């Protein structure tokens, strides 16, 4: 078994041993999505307009929740420094961890979002585009979240800062994602924002691991 798979499987195994914690981001998502209509009391049409934005923002916020499993718990028990010292390029290790984290955190969320979309009166026909946009945004989002986790890995109370660091960087994701969904609801071609999301994903996955590995290395010094 090569090192990438080993790290990936280990992280997945550890996450599933604590499967009750996997539910937290999902519950948070549902709560946020419930709070908005509560606060806005919108009409059916307003609901649809607001819904897309609410869903995307709730997704972004929920993805910030399960960060500990990425680096902090490994840093706390010494596994992270062993990974740094191991004869594997850290960028590969980081990529494996990001993939594991995305699978465990984002994948369930991605399944939940289209269901919630129905509750916001978003037409069924728009759901595939919504799902596709989320899938295309997921790599970038995972990389950004991992970057936030890596930058704060050595801080005792880094949790509160991560949102501050990561959320401004997710602006473009939000813009393209909501736009794609919007267009799809109106029945217009959605190629442009989807392609832009893909471009961001490629950029994030190719360059992100280097920044994340550097941040981990500096953080553990």
């Amino acid at each position, binding site marked *: *078994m*090569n*090192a990438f798979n*080993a*790290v990936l499987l*280990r992280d997945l*195994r*550890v996450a599933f*041993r*604590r499967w009750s914690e996997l539910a937290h981001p999902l519950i948070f998502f549902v709560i946020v999505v419930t709070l908005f209509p509560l606060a806005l009391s919108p009409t059916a049409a307003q609901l649809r307009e607001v819904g897309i934005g609410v869903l995307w923002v709730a997704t972004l916020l929920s993805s910030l929740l399960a960060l500990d499993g990425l680096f902090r718990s490994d840093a*706390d*028990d*010494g*596994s992270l*420094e*062993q*990974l*740094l*010292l*191991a*004869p*594997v*390029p850290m960028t590969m290790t980081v990529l494996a961890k990001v993939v594991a984290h995305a699978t465990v955190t984002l994948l369930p969320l991605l399944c939940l979002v289209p269901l919630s979309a129905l509750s916001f009166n978003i037409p069924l026909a728009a759901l595939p585009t919504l799902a596709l946009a989320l899938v295309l945004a997921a790599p970038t989002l995972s990389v950004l979240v991992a970057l936030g986790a890596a930058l704060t890995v050595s801080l005792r109370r880094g949790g509160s800062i991560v949102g501050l660091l990561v959320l401004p960087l997710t602006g473009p994701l939000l813009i393209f994602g909501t736009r794609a969904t919007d267009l799809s609801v109106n029945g217009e071609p959605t190629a442009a924002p989807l392609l832009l999301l893909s471009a961001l994903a490629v950029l994030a996955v190719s360059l992100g691991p280097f920044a994340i590995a550097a941040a981990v290395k500096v953080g*553990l*010094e």
Partner: protein
Amino acid sequence: MPLKMRLDLCYSKTKVNPIGCKNDRVGHNPRSTGASLLLMTEPALCGRELAAWRGDRCLFERLHFDLGPGQLALLVGSNGSGKTTLLRILAGLGLPTEGAVTWRGVAVGELAPDERGEIAYRGHLEALKRDLTVAENLSFHAAVWGRSQPFEGVLAELKLSGLAHMRARYLSAGQRRRAALAMLKLSRAKLWLLDEPTTNLDREGRGVLAEWVRGHLRDGGLAVIATHQPDEFAARGALMIEL
């Protein structure tokens, strides 16, 4: 004025061959003489002008040493004297304020991933995932270090065979320390950097560790051990570094 601590170095009688510690990396030039080729393959750890500061406090400075195959260096000093800092610098986990550490002539921070595999560092943290079993932890470690191998023998030596399928969270401190030692053995590294490895170990465990260190040195490995009980590991020709 910042507080400075005096550093005492005493070289043993058998001086290490300094050839292994050139500052420039020997290139892969096919026209190299046989002697140069030997340089590249000679495992050696060298520290030059090492200094470390914690804020305004100097932990150590002007530290020089050469360590060759089969050599042991013992780091002794009171708590907070910088032993952990020095070991981490040797492992490449931290940067010295001044100076450089080289392994086989290459700066430790610039080693290629496969070359890194020759150095094993065991610090205070055991690197065991609490939710995985001992066996799962060990096989992960072996897979990442590229040396998937059966570890039943190692577990038996450490009297951990019965605990192989127990989750690490249920182990006692001493058992976790033994599991960490198993990982050390499995990494098959040439250079062992151990930070107070006898912590939490009972007499039997310490015996096994001392035996392993002796065997490791006999096989041409190197070791730097920070310890409060240097007599456990003292060997002929060991370097004493007092911080």
